């Protein structure tokens, strides 16, 4: 008996036992029925086909049709863009044809991007900082706004992320991204579009990095020029590196707080997983910091410019502000959660001051803080019943132990033995997590 058959047999029992109503059973049945599976399969095929046609169009434009005049080229591309969009509009109004409509709109979105590139190619225009992506994104906005286009919204957020990755990091670029991201967030939250949210959060993390970098360069930049020319002049010290660490930890903590407070129920999963990823993977390199110190003695230069601290102090202050309500709550678990987030935010603000200490002190402190955070995340995921976050925390915890094993024993053990023991630890840990995690998680419920 497969899972669906088992579920359907159970549904009958649950209705009979009065656990759920007949209506609820029907809703569950329709979600897992063959029809629903076929519809999902067709949707996947349609989107895949749409992406292929779109990419094919872009490549066809790129091959540079020397036989056509520029006017003919533009007319052809307008025909493609309008044709696909019209079909999307037509099927949007036909009942049960929304999937087909989404596919045509997606092809229209690709055709529009190809058209923008074709115009640039025809007139030999070379944009330095990806302005063509901005034009592409701008052209998609209204379609997403009016027709709730799931896949086009994802595409727009991927393009926006690519754009911020290749900008010249001017203040104008930073402001434009902020503005566009804000408008697209509104659509993401309206449409509850999880994949677009993930791309948007990745883009935002890049944007925050560039914002802090721009602030770091502020005392050096006489005018708004390419920051990559200024970078070599910066006296980039450990204080600055810790500043970037604080930025990502604060961003990760903010996402975790949003997830745990269930600000948007549907977004709890991407918020919580991306939150722990930002917190964990930015801190883990600093747990080995003493290994980076060279033999001639480690230089511990400037603790960074105060102005570059603005982004992470602002985020941490926001986290503390929204956690204050929890501190006044009568619920013990809410109080505990709020205390944790306030504490971790305060520690995070002070992190750059570690640059006044020495590399070993930084390593020890970062190990302790990461260990504390992982245990806290395990506990938090348990009391908030976030099973996915619990599993992620457990795996990251195990990875942390493995890294510590290699770090500590790499100089003490024979290399072969080190790897054998490391592998055994990994396998044992994997089996243990699979067997025990559910028990630990469920034990948490009884404990509550």
């Amino acid at each position: 008996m497969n899972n669906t058959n088992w579920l359907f047999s159970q549904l009958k029992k649950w209705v009979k036992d009065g656990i759920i109503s007949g209506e609820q059973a029907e809703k569950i049945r329709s979600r897992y029925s063959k029809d629903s599976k076929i519809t999902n399969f067709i949707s996947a095929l349609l989107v895949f086909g749409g992406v292929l046609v779109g990419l094919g169009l872009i490549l066809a434009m790129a091959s540079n049709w020397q036989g056509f005049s520029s006017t003919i080229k533009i007319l052809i591309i307008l025909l493609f863009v309008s044709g696909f969009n019209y079909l999307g509009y037509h099927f949007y109004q036909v009942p049960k044809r929304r999937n087909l409509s989404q596919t045509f709109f997606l092809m229209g979105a690709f055709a529009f991007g190809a058209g923008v590139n074709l115009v640039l190619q025809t007139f030999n225009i070379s944009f330095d900082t990806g302005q063509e992506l901005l034009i592409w994104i701008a052209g998609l906005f209204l379609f997403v706004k009016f027709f709730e286009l799931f896949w086009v919204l994802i595409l727009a957020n991927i393009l926006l992320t690519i754009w911020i990755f290749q900008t010249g990091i001017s203040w104008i670029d930073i402001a434009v991204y902020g503005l566009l991201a804000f408008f697209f967030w509104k659509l993401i939250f309206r449409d509850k579009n999880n994949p677009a949210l993930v791309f948007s959060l990745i883009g935002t993390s890049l944007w925050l990095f560039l914002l802090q970098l721009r602030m770091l360069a502020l005392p050096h930049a006489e005018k708004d020029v390419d920051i990559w020319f200024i970078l070599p002049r910066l006296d980039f010290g450990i204080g600055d590196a810790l500043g970037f660490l604080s930025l990502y930890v604060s961003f990760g903590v903010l996402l975790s707080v949003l997830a745990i407070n269930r600000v948007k129920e549907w977004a709890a999963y991407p918020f919580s997983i991306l939150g722990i990823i930002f917190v964990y993977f930015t801190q883990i390199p600093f747990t080995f910091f003493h290994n980076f110190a060279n033999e001639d003695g480690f230089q511990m230069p400037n603790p960074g410019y105060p102005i570059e601290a603005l982004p992470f102090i602002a985020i941490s202050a926001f986290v503390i502000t929204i956690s204050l309500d929890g501190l006044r709550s009568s619920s013990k678990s809410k109080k505990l959660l709020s205390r944790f987030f306030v504490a971790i935010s305060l520690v995070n603000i002070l992190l750059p001051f570690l640059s006044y200490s020495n590399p070993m002190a930084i390593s020890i402190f970062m190990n302790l803080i990461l260990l504390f955070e992982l245990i806290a995340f395990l506990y938090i995921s348990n009391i908030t019943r976030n099973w996915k976050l619990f599993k992620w925390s457990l795996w990251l915890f195990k990875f942390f132990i493995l890294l510590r094993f290699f770090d500590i024993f790499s100089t003490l053990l024979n290399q072969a033995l080190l790897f054998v023991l490391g592998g055994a630890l990994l396998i044992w840990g994997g089996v243990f997590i699979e067997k025990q995690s559910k028990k630990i998680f469920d034990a948490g419920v009884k404990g509550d």
Partner: protein
Amino acid sequence: MRGSRVIRKDFLTASFIQVLLIIGLAFFSSVRASSGTVVLFDLDLRQGMYPFNSPFRGWSFEPALSASLTKIPNDLIKEHPVPFEVSDNGVVSSPLQDVFVTIVKDDSGWNISSASFFKPDEGFFLKSEWDLNRYSYEDSENSSDFFNVRYEVGNIFIAEENIGRLRECLGERSWDTDTSSYFWEIEPLPMSVEVSVLDDGNLIPLRLFCEGKEIK
């Protein structure tokens, strides 16, 4: 629930914006290119330019103008140049410095008459940037009597079937380790680029020529 009239209005608005963006971009590009003075410049093929294939834009090629326009004698510059800072690891670090090069045409072609860090009030001038590449071929022959500039000509897009012809025209250059210099394994052919020079000295590439014939 929106009515079909509203849906149609929304569709037309969104479509209009897309069409406007494409036509506007084409119109702006066309008007901008035609607003400048069209000039033909020889290329310097020693600069090692190669066609580049980008997945979404196809083949493109960025021409470099000849040394008669990029190598500027110090006595032609009107002001004192601001020196660059060069760190121990060889990184040249300074904001780019714009150089406006005034040119005149004589029997030998276009030549430099003067250069300035400020936009000239009169004369036919091109906007360039001080060449920050310390490892460019000019470095070995650089002396305190000259400095080099680089023009942002931009890319010319080439049809795939003409890339072979472009490669023939560019020749093939190799490095001779004995003499520490480049030599031509296959001699390049004379190439030139037609550009539109705008009022602010910026350049827009229009057409590429090899032995006087256009490479589309």
